[in-house]
């Protein structure tokens, strides 16, 4: 059983409302205080390297200037983040995108809209190494 509150989290998201929702779910509902949020993906690596190495990075896929896949590639090139769990958050219902997420090296995916009830469970399952490629019904 993982203590989710003990981890450091980074969320990268360019939609202000989505950031606010995540803040509500993780901060308010789950009581996590170690969540850092980037409001876009510019100068990503510099900003990442200014942080403590996060345990979990949550990446929005559709964002600018670098989309989620590009950001993932950048992180994966730096060996310091080898043990970091990287999760895709996407509003897309496209199966083909899920396939791509898995192939490109994400550790898991959680679909938007995030469910307040389901999110902690899915997060925990991914951290335990389960294959979670969650697509909203």
């Amino acid at each position: 059983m993982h203590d989710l509150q003990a981890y450091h989290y980074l969320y990268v998201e360019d939609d202000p409302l989505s950031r606010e929702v995540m803040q509500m779910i993780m901060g308010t509902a789950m009581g996590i205080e170690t969540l850092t949020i980037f409001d876009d993906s510019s100068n990503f690596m510099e900003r990442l390297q200014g942080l403590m190495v996060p345990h979990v990075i949550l990446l929005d896929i559709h964002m600018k200037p670098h989309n989620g896949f590009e950001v993932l590639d950048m992180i994966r090139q730096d060996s310091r983040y080898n043990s970091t769990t990287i999760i895709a958050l996407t509003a897309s219902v496209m199966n083909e995108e899920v396939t791509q997420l898995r192939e490109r090296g994400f550790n898991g995916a959680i679909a938007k809209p995030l469910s307040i009830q389901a999110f902690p469970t899915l997060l925990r399952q991914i951290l335990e190494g389960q294959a979670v490629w969650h697509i909203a019904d």
Partner: protein
Amino acid sequence: MTTLLHLTPYLASLSISLAVGAYAWQHRQVAGARYFALYALFQASWTIGYVLELGTPSLQGKVLWDDFQFIGFIYSGAPMIIFALIYTGRPIKSTRRLWFWLSIVPVVSLALVVTNAWHGIVRGEAWLVEDTPFDVLYYDFTPAIFLMGAYAIGQSLYVLVALAHYFFKSQYIYRRQVATIFVGGLIPVLGGFATFGGLTLSGQRDVAPVTFALGNVVVAWGLFRYRLFDLVPIARDMVLENMVDGVLVLDRERRIVDHNPTFLRMLRLSKPVIGKKTEMAFSDWPDLLNRFGPLDQARERIEVPREDGVIAHIDVDITPLTDQHQQKIGRLIVLRNVTEQVEFQRALEQQKSELEKLNTELQVAWDAAKAADRVKSQFLANTSHELRTPLNAILNFAQFLAMDIFGEINDQQRDAVDKIIGSGKHLLALINDILDITKIEAGMMHLFIEDNINLHQELTSVLASVETMLVEKPIRLVTDIDAELPTMVGDRRRIRQILLNLLSNAAKFTAEGSITLSIKKRQTDILFMVSDTGPGIAEEDQQIIFEPFRQTEIGVRQMSGTGLGLPITMRLVEAHHGKLWLESEMGEGSSFFFTLPVQSEALLELMKTEAEV
């Protein structure tokens, strides 16, 4: 011994005649050869008659053998003439009829010879002159004998003239053969003149049989040397005359030695050209003369306008002709009309370039279609994202309100928040449906195939959702599901979607009664049935409901749904290589059936290729 010595020339002549005859007979399948054999046989009979006449001591016996010689003497002209006609290629309508006419004089003559004792027309009084070793038969020549001799010589002369004529007409390589036969025929004629002129061999003996021998020696040499019956000139003429290629033979001085009719036709020449210099004969074709006149060897394709103005394509092939000492003696020019071939090739090439053009166009269209596909795909992804992002915020914030995260809300507010959440979820479902059908119609729906789907596990969440829909309705949910179901291959989420669509339709349209879900394992697939006790579907509507955006009247009255659920469901089943059908009557409820394969190579293949996307 001396006797034999005296007979030697005649016996030699006899054997040569017989040998030549046998040789010709061996080649009797060659036109004319059998007549030459007959000719040789008549000459041989003449010689035999003469040898026997010499060898017979009595006057009576000698006269008898002299009579016998008349057969060869008077009859040998007939086969010789027929042979010459065939050899020189003269047209003969009927050999049999010709033989008949040529036989009239010999038959009459022989009749006179046989009956000579009564009338003495052919031979007057005969007597013996003593000589060593043979006595010689003498008799006075009558006018009849002179006439017969004239007839025989006339025939021989006719043959000689025909041969001479043919000599000048025929081509270089055949001339020696013709000349040889000519000389071979001439010698006996000279012998005949000599005989009538009184020339005798020593001892008063007849010169004619010896001239046959001489003539036959020449002919025999010609036959073996030039293989007369192996290659009859007429055969060569026939080939040349009927050839589709034009043939022209020139000598060293560029004079025309031979040509065939095709050659003249090809160059539209009508006047005879044999013997003319090429400059004269082809004065209408200065270009060709300039181009090919000096060439000993060439192989080129030229264009020649035909009479009707159409361009003919002709291959010109020039080869030098040499004699056995490799001395140049002329040139052989062959013209071959290749117009059809050239036109065929041209048509082929045109077709090829048209095909290539079409191919390029197709490639362009294909590329455009693929580009359009990418644009569409991108558009769908964007639309999905753009529509859902704000909707997600609406749903999430409404949820936060409902969970009292922003403080406790009163009942009226809660009711409003629940309606926001309900409508939001409905809108989300609509967006998903529209995106689904758009992807399906665009052929861009990809299944996310797994090969270890546990149906029971998937059913749990599906049935839970359906039960929440039925909470406030007097409807029983009945399940009849095989306890043991194999793990199956397919898209887990889409299979759930199929079941949920059919079950929620049943829940939507059924007022009371029951909804039954039955799942049965069959040999290679699984049969699903969702039936209800709803209003049923009229037969005329049973097709319509599977078309996008079409609903039945009852469906429209329901004021919910998009008319997309069934079309999507149908296509999802088909994408899984299953079948979907329905049985329904108005007032009797509806039963939807569908099958899904347990294992499917095609789907497993899709699972592998998915990984490459």
